[in-house]
């Protein structure tokens, strides 16, 4: 036995690191265990950095509004520059069906307090100079959304958690969750055993593997997406641009220009590429480049610097799986972020800390109902 904790978090990533901050700040004795050598070395560093509250699902909207508060106020509160930029999000549309889909979710988005509107093509061309205007019908623009550096943010979360008393064990692999009489009692790793009445499953793509050690099947299935970043150029547009149209071998794609002037982009493969292969392919760049220069021709001269491939821990319906396990007391799922862990994690951290300390607030229920691992998995969210 190598220590006793109130909570053990498995995974120092997009969800685990900010959750560690909330727990430690609440005085809860917390240990974070990660098989990798430092924070965010799993999927967090593969995120491109977009943060939006403009979803169609109330739970996501509520969570991400909280995330935006945390990201946007972080530097003021803690002093670390995490490159938060409120550049907004825009979904330009070229097809009638996309326009009506986006317009149909505006009422619920507004009901939950989002600053979003459907704007005309001229406005879109103003916020994305050089965008292809042929058949451009306009699009949504939500100026309060933004972006931050996943690399800097997770380092800041890690440092704040450490300052608040949280312990991190890196290069240590959790082999199984330990249960006693049907309740969580701790974890066993490749280095020893730790006791704790609560284990938070923040293992992302590896949640299924983790939970299977105690016979729990959590429906997380990773698929892979590639992303890339260019050299920096003088900033000429601010928002994340999401093109919902499909292309050969792909669904939507999205890109933005970060605070340093680099274009960061990603595409959704169709059909999905399931598995945990994180190795870069030759398919991605030609596929995404055609679409990028088609939508915004002036990108053609900007040079791609680096490519990577990351995993989306997919749930059956594209929404996270957050909540207490009903079979094993003390196992708290916070997984299945479907590629949105970076923008959702911080917003969830407070709820998770309140769940552990049994101080849930009534407003938390919209999140917990929406993300319940026991919900009925229907169709995809309109705006995944």
């Amino acid at each position, binding site marked *: 036995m190598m220590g006793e904790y109130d909570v053990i978090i498995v995974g120092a990533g997009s969800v685990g690191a900010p959750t560690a901050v909330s727990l430690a700040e609440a005085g809860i004795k917390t240990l974070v265990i990660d098989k990798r050598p430092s924070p965010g070395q799993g999927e967090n560093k593969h995120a491109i950095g977009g943060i939006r509250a403009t979803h169609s699902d109330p739970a996501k909207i509520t969570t991400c509004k909280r995330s935006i508060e945390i990201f946007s106020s972080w530097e003021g509160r803690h002093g670390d520059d995490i490159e938060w930029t409120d550049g907004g999000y825009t979904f330009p549309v070229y097809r009638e069906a996309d326009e009506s889909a986006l317009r149909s979710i505006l009422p619920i988005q507004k009901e939950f307090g989002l600053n979003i509107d459907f704007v005309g093509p001229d406005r879109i061309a103003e916020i994305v100079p050089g965008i292809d205007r042929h058949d451009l019908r306009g699009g949504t623009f939500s100026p309060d959304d933004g972006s931050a550096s996943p690399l800097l943010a997770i380092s800041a979360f890690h440092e704040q958690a450490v300052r608040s008393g949280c312990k991190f064990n890196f290069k240590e692999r959790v082999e199984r969750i330990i249960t006693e009489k049907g309740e969580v009692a701790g974890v066993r790793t490749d280095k020893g055993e730790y006791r704790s009445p609560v284990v938070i499953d923040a293992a992302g793509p590896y949640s299924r593997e983790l939970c299977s050690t105690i016979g729990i099947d959590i429906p997380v299935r990773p698929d892979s997406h590639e992303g890339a970043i260019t*050299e920096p150029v003088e900033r000429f547009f601010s928002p994340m641009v999401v093109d919902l149209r499909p292309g050969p071998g792909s669904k939507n794609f999205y890109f933005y220009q970060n605070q340093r002037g680099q274009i960061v982009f990603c595409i959704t493969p169709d059909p999905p590429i399931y598995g945990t292969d994180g190795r870069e*392919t030759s398919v991605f760049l030609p596929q995404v480049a055609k679409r*990028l220069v088609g939508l915004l021709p002036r990108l*053609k001269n900007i040079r791609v*610097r680096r490519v990577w491939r990351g995993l989306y821990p997919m749930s059956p319906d594209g929404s996270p799986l957050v909540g207490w396990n009903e079979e094993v007391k003390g196992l708290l799922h916070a997984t299945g972020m479907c590629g949105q862990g970076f923008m959702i994690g911080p917003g969830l951290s407070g709820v998770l800390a309140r769940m552990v300390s049994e101080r849930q607030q009534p407003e938390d229920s919209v999140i917990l109902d929406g993300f319940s691992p026991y919900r009925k998995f229907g169709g995809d969210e309109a705006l995944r």
Partner: protein
Amino acid sequence: MSTRRIEHHPILEVPVRKEVTFNWNGAAVNGYEGEMLSSALISNGVDIFGHHPKDNSPQGIFCANGQCAQCLVICNGKPIKSCMTPLIEGMEVRSVEGLPEAPGEDAHVETHDIPVSDVDVLVIGGGPAGLSASLELGKRGVSTLLIDDKDRLGGKLVLQTHKFFGSVKDSFAGTRGYHIGEILAHELSGHDSVKVWTGTTAVGVFSDGLVGLMKGDRYHLIRPKKLLVAAGARERMLSFPGNTLPGVYGAGAFQTIVNRDLVRCSERILIIGGGNVGLIAGYHAIQAGIEVVGLVEALPQVGGYKVHADKLSRLGVPIWTGHTIVAAHGDERVESVTIAKLDDSWKVIKGTERRFEVDTVLIAVGLAEVDEFFHKAREFNIDVFSAGDSQEIAEASAAMFSGRIEGLKIARSLGLDIGEIPPEWNEKMEILRSKPGPIKKIEAPDDEQGVMPVIHCDQEIPCNPCSSVCPKGSINMEGGTITGLPWFDSEKGCIGCLSCVGICPGLAITLVDYRDDPDRPTVTLPYEVWRDEVEVGKEVPVLDEDGGVLGRYRVDRVVSDPRFPGTLMVQLKMEKGVAKKAAGVWLQETVRDPSGLYEKEPLPDEAIICRCERITAGEIREAIRGGIRDMNHLKAVTRAGMGSCGSKTCRPMIQRIFREEGIDLGEVTDRTDRPLFVEVPLGAFAGVGGDDDG
């Protein structure tokens, strides 16, 4: 053309090229069509290509090899590496001040699918290893694509004006490097199964077995059955304050500008590092008419061949062993450099600092394998081989053997019956890779009559042209091996044909002829620098092997032998007492006095480690002291290694800081390398520009 052009060179022919006009920051300037834009700019006195967006620091040439991005300029609206861009008439070129702008070219562009080709073998790199491997593959009819990012084959052979060491029989010893490149390239052109793409850069390998290439401005994907990485080496950098000032760059970069591009990029240089690269660069500088203030080596003796060091000493270049560079100084470029003596624990001895006014500091502190393609390909289960410096840093002659061996291994792995790979190739490669041995001496015969060679070759190195060329078979290798010291067998005699003097790559053989006048024998000294310095009738200072002055002697005759182009044989009469001691002509008689102490104590933490992102040693040290042991985490927090070059230069320097901080590198997680290894415009991936090119 400007005065920075090398119009005459003692070894290299200056080709006739077409002059063109282009614009630099709005002013019309001239250059030669097809030369690299960076060299055209340098020849016009441009040493600063722009200023860094982070701290406005001036950016000058650094690698001259397409590996970094320090030479970035805006050409016709687009950011490009000037060292890899051939000059075209009318180019509009601007310096990059801060971040470049993406030009508002908003017209719809046609995109195309990227061509994918299959080939049996893809060879990355057309230097000595890649050429030799391709030749073996070509001889066996294997379908091979050889690519090289430069506009001509030969790799770094192109830069080598000196005669090669090694063996005459199988690695062209005694032939000048750039000629070897031409010979191999010519030989290769006779093999139809080998396709050559110059101007083609490998940019990434992918897990689906494909290799991405940029051929000019077009992107291609190649699916090779076998991949050979023969991409050579890149230069290591040092950490010292001022280490990124324009005017601090690698010795290889210097050779590229001076010998390939024939641009005299500086007036006065100081060299850091006494390996062969640094020693040869010093020699090349003098051939190009550039003053070498001195060469600094931290070790108690130079690591390169003694014959190279002797050549440099004899030309009048001081070699300071047990010294290091403290700092380079200057505002917008190097104006001076401070060096100092080291104590036994490698610390600078206070009070020994000396400052020299120079405009250039060449860094020649070793090479690192360009092996990222190899490692990535192996990770991706591609059947990959490596040869030459990509495999192990050594002389080009070893690279040729390694290329031949790997070429045959590849042929065999494709199922060809190649028989046995000659075992002596391996042996020879290992010999050629061997480090120079200790200094020892075989004295010349005592006789003072007749004619005889005097061999000033006092170190075991793999080299035997003198023995091969002697028509009397009088020069023997000690122990009968290529690394043995050569000695003259007076029994067999000498006919005074001068072949050994002409061929010796180390310029370490003289001929002393007593036949006309036993008291004042005629001494023949090899000489490869400026002909006008050794005109007949001129009195020249003659030095002994260690650079000591023997006196001034009148040049009687200058002989050249078409078999040994570029080497002049200077004949003068000397007293018989010193004749055998004479080893060379002292060229650079001016010895620079140090210009006093540099007043400010430079902080080593000011040194830039990541030159792309401008991250200092201090920032990295602080992060390491804060507990970071993962290079990826270090990158995330400091941005070191996140820039254009992908940590090619800073990785070894960061590792060194970890060691300085007492951390075992075994504890440190290495950074994850990812494609691309060279930046590529998005439009190229989109196939912009059409499918008119196969």
